[in-house]
C-alpha cells in the first residue's frame, strides 16, 4: 500500500532521510535550513500547540501566514489532528478574515507571533513562535513522530481554499486529503520529481498552485527553497544562479519579469524544470526561454483550485510544436469538451472544458447553488472555453467567468466593487481586468459619481487601502457618466475593458 496521506509521506522521509534538507529560507539575510526530521518535529510541536486550544476534531481553523516553516508545520499539524485548514493570503485585512471566520464557523485563528492581526480579530487565536519551537524540538521523540498520522481520515476535508471573494457570495473550494494526495501523486509523476530536486518557490502557499508546489516536493522528499518576493525579481534571478536549484515554478508574469526586468541571461547550472500555470505561454516568452534554457524542461500546465490544482500539462518536447496549448490531461484525470447541454464535442469544436478525477473538489463550502452549477454528473465544469486539436491537445480560448488574473493572484471583481460602493461619492461601480504586458491583467475601476459629490480618486484609494490587501488595490480609476448594461441590467464588463487600452509606463 503506498503512502496513505500527505502526513504519512512526511514521516516516511523523516525516517528514511532524516538529515536531508526539506526547507531552505532566509531570515534577515541569514540562510537557514530545516531537515526532514526537524520539519516533522516542528509538526509534532505545533500539533501539541493546536491541541492545547481544545479545538475538536473535524473543526475548521483559519491560517494567515506567509510562506514560512510555521505555515508548513501548522498545516501538516492540523491535518494530523483531523482538522480543516482555511489558508488566507498573509496580507489579508482583519475585515476579510473576520468574514471568513463567521462564514465558515471556524473555531481558531492562527498567525505568527508578531502579526498585527492577532489583536484585531477577536476570535480564539494561536500565535506561532518559530524560534521557540525550534529551540524545543530536541525533546520530541520517535514515538511522537509515528503517532502523527493516527487521527487522519482520508475523506476528511483538508483544505478550504477561497477562490472568490470574501464578501458577497464566497466560494470556498473544499478539498479532501484524498483529493490532494491524488493530485500530488500525478504531478510528481509527470514532473519526475525526486529527492534530488530543489524548487525555488515564489508562489504563495495559500493558493492552489503554491500549495501544490509545497505538497509535491514534500511528497517527493525534495527540498523547497522559500523564494523572495517577486517585487524584486533581480534577487530571484541571482538566487536561481547561485544555488543548487533544480526547479522554478511561476505564472506568466513571473517569467515576463525575469526575462524583462532582470539580468537573467544564462542558464542556471542545475535547473532541470520550470513550470508555468495560470495561462498559456506566449510565443515570444516560449522562444526566449527555450533559447536561454536549452537543458531545462519547460512545463506549461493548466488547472484550477476546484481540481486541487492541476488538470493538464504540455509535455516539454511538444512546447514548440503546440505553442499556446495547455497540453493533455495529467495522469488520473479525464478531460473533455462539451456544449451547453453537456453533450461531449469532437476535436476542433469549441465548448466548455470539463474534468473528472480523484482530484476534483467535494464542492463549495455552504454554497449548494454554486456547487450544483459546477459539479454536474460527476464532471467539474471549469468555466473555461476551449477545444482539442486532432491529436487531443487542448487550447483555452476564453473564460465564461469574470475572474481577474494579476500576477499570481486571482481576484473577483465583485469583491472590490462591494468595497468601493461604500464610498460616499460612488453611485455605481464596475471592476474589470485590463491587459497588462507584465502582470497579465491589472485592476481597473469604472465609477459613476453621485451627484454633488466630488469624483476624487483619493477617496476611493484611501478606502481601498484600508479595506483591501495590496494585490487587490485598483490600479486605474475611470469616472464615467454611465456603465454599459445588458437589457437585464447586468454590467457588460467586456465593453468596459475594450474602452481603454492601457500601456505600462505611458
Amino acid at each position, binding site marked *: 500500500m503506498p503512502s496513505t496521506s500527505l502526513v504519512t509521506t512526511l514521516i516516511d522521509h523523516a525516517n528514511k532521510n532524516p538529515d536531508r534538507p526539506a526547507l531552505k529560507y532566509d531570515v534577515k539575510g541569514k540562510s537557514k535550513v530545516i531537515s526532514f526530521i526537524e520539519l516533522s518535529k516542528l509538526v509534532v510541536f505545533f500539533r501539541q500547540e493546536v491541541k492545547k486550544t481544545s479545538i475538536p476534531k473535524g473543526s475548521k481553523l483559519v491560517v494567515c501566514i506567509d510562506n514560512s516553516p510555521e505555515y508548513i508545520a501548522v498545516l501538516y499539524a492540523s491535518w494530523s489532528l483531523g482538522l480543516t485548514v482555511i489558508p488566507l493570503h498573509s*496580507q489579508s485585512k482583519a475585515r476579510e478574515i473576520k468574514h471568513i471566520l463567521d462564514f465558515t464557523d471556524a473555531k481558531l485563528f492562527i498567525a505568527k507571533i508578531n502579526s498585527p492581526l492577532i489583536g484585531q480579530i477577536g476570535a480564539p487565536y494561536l500565535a506561532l513562535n518559530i524560534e521557540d519551537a525550534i529551540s524545543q524540538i530536541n525533546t520530541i521523540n520517535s514515538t511522537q513522530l509515528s503517532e502523527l498520522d493516527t487521527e487522519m481520515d482520508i475523506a476528511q476535508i483538508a483544505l478550504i481554499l477561497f477562490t472568490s471573494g470574501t464578501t458577497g457570495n464566497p466560494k470556498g473550494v473544499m478539498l479532501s486529503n484524498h483529493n490532494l494526495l491524488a493530485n500530488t501523486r500525478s504531478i510528481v509523476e509527470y514532473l519526475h520529481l525526486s529527492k534530488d530536486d530543489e524548487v525555488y518557490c515564489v508562489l504563495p502557499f495559500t493558493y492552489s498552485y503554491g500549495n501544490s508546489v509545497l505538497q509535491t516536493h514534500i511528497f517527493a522528499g525534495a527540498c523547497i527553497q522559500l523564494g523572495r*518576493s*517577486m*517585487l*524584486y*525579481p*533581480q*534577487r530571484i534571478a541571482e538566487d536561481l544562479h547561485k544555488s543548487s536549484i533544480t526547479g522554478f515554478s511561476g505564472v506568466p*508574469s513571473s517569467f515576463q*519579469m525575469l526575462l524583462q*526586468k*532582470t*539580468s537573467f541571461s544564462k542558464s542556471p547550472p542545475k535547473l532541470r524544470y520550470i513550470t508555468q500555470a495560470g495561462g498559456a505561454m506566449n510565443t515570444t516568452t516560449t522562444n526566449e526561454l527555450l533559447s536561454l534554457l536549452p537543458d531545462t524542461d519547460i512545463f506549461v500546465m493548466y488547472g484550477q483550485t476546484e481540481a486541487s490544482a492541476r488538470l493538464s500539462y504540455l509535455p516539454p518536447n511538444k512546447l514548440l510544436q503546440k505553442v499556446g496549448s495547455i497540453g493533455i490531461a495529467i495522469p488520473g484525470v479525464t478531460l473533455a469538451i462539451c456544449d451547453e447541454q453537456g453533450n461531449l464535442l469532437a476535436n476542433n469544436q469549441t465548448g466548455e472544458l470539463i474534468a473528472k478525477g480523484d482530484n476534483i473538489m467535494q464542492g463549495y463550502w455552504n454554497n449548494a447553488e454554486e456547487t450544483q452549477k459546477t459539479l454536474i454528473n460527476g464532471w467539474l465544469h471549469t468555466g473555461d472555453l476551449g477545444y482539442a486539436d486532432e491529436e487531443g491537445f487542448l487550447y483555452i480560448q476564453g473564460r465564461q467567468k469574470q475572474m481577474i488574473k494579476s*500576477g499570481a493572484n486571482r481576484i473577483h471583481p465583485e469583491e472590490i466593487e462591494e468595497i468601493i460602493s461604500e464610498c460616499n461619492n460612488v453611485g455605481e461601480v464596475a471592476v474589470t481586468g485590463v491587459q*497588462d504586458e*507584465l*502582470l497579465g491583467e*491589472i485592476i481597473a475601476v469604472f465609477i459613476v459619481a453621485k451627484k454633488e459629490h466630488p469624483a476624487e480618486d*483619493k477617496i476611493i*484609494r*484611501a478606502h481601498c*487601502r484600508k479595506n483591501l*490587501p*495590496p*494585490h487587490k*488595490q485598483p*490600479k486605474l480609476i475611470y469616472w464615467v457618466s454611465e456603465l454599459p448594461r445588458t437589457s437585464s441590467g447586468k454590467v457588460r464588463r467586456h465593453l468596459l475593458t475594450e474602452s481603454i487600452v492601457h500601456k*505600462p*509606463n505611458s
Partner: protein
Amino acid sequence: MTTETTLRKFIMENYMFTEDDTELKNDHSFLDMGILDSMGILEVIALLEDDFNITVEDEEMIPENLDSINNLLAFIQKKSA
C-alpha cells in the same frame, strides 16, 4: 523641495493616500509594509530616472537600493556622486 520630501510625497500620495506624515517612517520597508506592488516599484524607478536623471540597471533593482525612503536616498546619493 529636498530629495527626501519629493520621495516621501511621491510614496504617500500615490501609494498610501494619506497626508499624515507620521504614517511613513524613512526606514519602513515598502515590501514588508505592503506599500508597493511590483508595478509600484517600476513607477519608483521611473521617478528616479525621470526626476533625478538616474539610470537604474537591472542589477540595481534590489531592496537594498529601493525598499525604503532611506535606501532610496542612499542610492540616489551614490548614483549622483
